[in-house]
């Protein structure tokens, strides 16, 4: 064990701070540009400085520096602290780009990756359907080949940020005769195509981030097929090879916990600040135990990945999502208990986002609902339990439909 980052990373941290001070917020005439253009400018400069898109080749608009998860964590921390807009559309940078790097044609890489990295193109992910959630391989939206086009008919649902996306990457059934995952292809769809209808869904917290997307004979050029026809399942799994890019840190958990302490200092129980109540103090300390586990477990994963010892921490990686979901839910439940009557506060529209903003009562109420959503989105907690049971504890696999290659969505 050696938890010192060392001079190399201390210098990097200083350089990122300096970069952030000099480059965000924009100044002069640039500060008058629309927000999205400002963000694009910032990201372009951050890539040039070698701080973003680090592992993407220069030919595709990246910084092309050797992979270094610790450096990336330092950069993330500092750009977060500076409030800089370094996170472009995560579906684009974290899912589409790795997939194209692995499976895309040269033309696709050159055409799509550079604008995705800076956020000129926003992406949404067209996977889930009304009848295909955890059982993704059963999806039914069809893409029928007609000459140099596919024609898509069907529906996607729970499509995050589809209302503002320029493009969708998704799985569609191109091979009518092949069952389940064998008949799927991975297609890139222009969201401005005729026949696409995006309808935002109102979430339980009042926010409208995810949508239904309807396809009525939507034409998609054949060159928008990634990988081979009928091999979309495999293409979509290519992202997993880049899961090191998805390693989160537990910094949000720390921030939420500090906010929770502040809340406990503000609210009064029995005429005194709640923080003075021994029972409340113990519950907070118990939460800190959970958070400390999450923080140090993610440190350990990061360290192992940086040393190419991924296999040693595979079980920990497989447990990370369920664990962080559980911790987040415990924290928001505690917040609701502290809020007392204020736990009924209706979140206002600017309190429903995922971002960690000023922890107002409405935002806590929204976060308590979002915390339940994290048990559903991106592989439900029950699916996580199957994965942990099978891959960590070696228990028998769940029954699959006969002849099926496609497992549950992770």
């Amino acid at each position, binding site marked *: 064990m050696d938890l010192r980052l060392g001079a190399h990373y201390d210098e990097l941290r200083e350089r990122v701070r300096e970069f952030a001070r000099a480059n965000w917020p924009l100044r002069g005439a640039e500060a008058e540009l629309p927000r999205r253009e400002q963000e694009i400018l910032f990201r372009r400069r951050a890539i040039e400085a070698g701080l973003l898109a680090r592992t993407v080749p220069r030919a595709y608009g990246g910084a092309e520096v050797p992979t270094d998860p610790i450096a990336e964590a330092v950069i993330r921390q500092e750009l977060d602290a500076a409030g800089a807009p370094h996170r472009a559309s995560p579906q684009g940078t974290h899912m589409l780009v790795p997939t194209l790097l692995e499976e895309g044609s040269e033309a696709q890489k050159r055409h799509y990756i550079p604008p995705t990295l800076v956020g000129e193109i926003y992406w949404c992910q067209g996977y889930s359907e009304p009848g295909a959630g955890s059982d993704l391989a059963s999806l039914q939206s069809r893409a029928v080949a007609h000459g140099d086009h596919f024609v898509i008919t069907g529906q996607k649902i729970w499509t995050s940020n589809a209302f503002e996306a320029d493009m969708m990457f998704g799985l569609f059934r191109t091979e009518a005769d092949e069952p389940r995952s064998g008949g799927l292809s991975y297609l890139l769809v222009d969201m401005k195509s005729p026949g696409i209808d995006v309808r935002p869904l109102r979430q339980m917290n009042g926010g409208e981030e995810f949508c239904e997307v309807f396809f009525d004979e939507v034409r998609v050029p054949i060159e928008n097929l990634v990988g081979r026809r009928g091999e979309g399942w495999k293409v979509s799994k290519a992202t997993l090879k880049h899961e090191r890019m998805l390693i989160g840190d537990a910094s949000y958990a720390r921030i939420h916990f500090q906010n929770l302490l502040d809340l406990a200092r503000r609210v009064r129980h029995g005429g005194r600040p709640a923080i003075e109540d021994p029972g409340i*103090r113990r519950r*907070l300390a118990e939460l800190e135990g959970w958070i400390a586990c999450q923080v*140090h*477990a993610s440190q350990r994963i990061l360290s192992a990945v940086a040393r190419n010892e991924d296999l040693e921490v595979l079980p920990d990686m497989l447990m990370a999502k369920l664990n962080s979901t559980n911790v987040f839910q415990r924290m928001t439940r505690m917040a609701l208990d502290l809020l007392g009557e204020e736990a009924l506060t209706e979140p206002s529209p600017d309190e429903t986002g995922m971002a960690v903003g000023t922890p107002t009562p409405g935002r806590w109420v929204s976060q308590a609902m979002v915390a339940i959503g994290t048990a559903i989105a991106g592989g439900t907690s029950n699916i996580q339990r*199957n994965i*942990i049971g*099978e891959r960590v504890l070696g*228990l028998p696999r769940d029954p699959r439909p006969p002849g099926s290659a496609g497992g549950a969505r992770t």
Partner: protein
Amino acid sequence: MHFGLTEEQKLLQETVRSFVAGECPPQVVRAVFDAGGAHDPALWKGLSELGVAGMVVPEVYGGAGLELLDLALVAEELGAGAVPAPFLGHAMACVALSLGASESQRERWLPALASGELVGTVGWSEPGGVIDPEAFTVEFREGALFGAKSLVPNASAAGLLVVAGPDGRLFVVERGAPGLRTEAVSNIDRTRPLEKVILEGVPAEELEQPVGDRVRDAGLVLLAADAFGCGHRLVRMSAEYAKARQQFGRPIAEFQAVKHQLANMAVEIDPSRALWWFAAHAFDHMPEEREKAAALAKAHITDRAARVARDAVEAHGGLGFTWECDVQIYFKRAAFDRVVLGTPDQHRDRIADLGGY
């Protein structure tokens, strides 16, 4: 940055694991348990020959000069095997003398502690569940100790007793000193007997440095590591049982209700490994983090292990409720880890203060 073990540490853990598998298999643990938890000198001798007894003792006194993390890695394996050995008290005594003793005190006691010939232990808590040194009532007058210490691990097996007083002060008492009495304490964990030590004017020698806090923190981390070992093992035992046990014509592990229960148990305990690693590392390298990290590890992980132990009983069905099933041994060992040196709630009170809540 490296958050992980060195090759030497992995080898150390592997060595202890195979020793436990060979010399202390479940039937040996059961035999000790049924006999009421008698100290097994042969087992301790074997562990000492591996270097376990002197692990943190400086090399000049015959030890290995290693750190608390190394010791905690051993604790994990002893917990995983429910090994009946006077390890906890001995390790804490070694920390006390290695960090707090004068040169002559070190020369006098450390070589015998390092070889394991002299077994040490530490009296920390006082009757009534008192763990705060400021509230200790033990007194040192004219070279003699007066008072009592409760829940002293393996006191009868020990030849050297370190008694904790107020202000971090520590006192050494040798076996057979006049005025020293021990009383057995009822303790469900028969792998590690606990005794009450009564001090009625017992001649004692004060250690040069008042390092009581560090001795306590070492103990907290070792209990957390032991509890982790218990909990981790219980999850794997339960998974193996579910794969073997057939009902409705198939292994019960195929039922999602069972599978999910086992997955929840794993998520309960497994992510806490990094917490005790961190706390053990902080003990030697991050003084500003040491005290709180040790308290967090003890409070959190011993609670998690106790929870996993309850679930493991249930996962084993009727068998889990029997004396013959090893789950009961781990259940009780986890209970010891949870209570000795202070309950989770007592440490959460400290965490709240240390964290500036």
